[in-house]
């Protein structure tokens, strides 16, 4: 059971989901300072623009992309009669996610390395 694609996708979906909820409220906290003026906004933004957070954006991208594509897979499996393709769909979304994370991660990495 623990090696089935269904279980792996369930765990990854939950894990990325919880991470994204935590990110959402942090994001709202940062953007919430926009009405306090440029200095206050930039000061709060600077807290999350350290090299560590810039690199963490790659993990964020991975979480968003995987969570979104796994959601699309779930919707397809739920609303269309494709149960027998469940496994193939999981591998497909995993491959698409990996390609998108690499494609999107490289510019983020280069930007982070610029300092």
């Amino acid at each position: 059971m623990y090696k089935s694609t269904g279980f792996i996708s369930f765990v990854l979906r939950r894990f990325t989901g919880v991470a994204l909820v935590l990110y959402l409220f942090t994001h709202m906290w940062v953007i919430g300072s926009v009405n306090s003026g440029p200095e206050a906004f930039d000061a709060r933004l600077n807290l999350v623009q350290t090299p560590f957070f810039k690199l963490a954006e790659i993990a964020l991208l991975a979480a968003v992309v995987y969570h979104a594509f796994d959601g699309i897979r779930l919707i397809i499996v739920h609303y269309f009669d494709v149960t027998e393709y469940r496994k193939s769909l999981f591998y497909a979304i995993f491959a698409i996610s990996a390609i998108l994370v690499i494609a999107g991660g490289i510019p983020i990495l280069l930007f982070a390395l610029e300092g």
Partner: protein
Amino acid sequence: MRIFQMQRVSAIALLVFLTIHMIVVHYPPFHIDFNRILVRMNQPLWKGIDIAFLFFVLIHALTGAYMVLTDVERFNKYQRVLAGLAILIGIMAFIYGAQTILAFSAPVSVNAMVR
């Protein structure tokens, strides 16, 4: 069942809003500061799009968090409390976020610069 449907509907809405958000705001990655975001946040259409995005993302995040928590046996008996908490956090976060978006207006000097 209602929560499950809210998850699905908000997920489909998020696929649209998140794609727009990622392309317009975050890709390609660049240094974000106050001046970068005010051009977009100052436009009524973007205010509407951002508020709709906020609405769906909060529904998706809070129903998701509720489902993750109630899956844990220990929390299952607190379903009503957790639902109430999720609704309360959702309303508070929506008011905070929407108020931030609606109240935003670029400083006069920057307005002139943007035009």
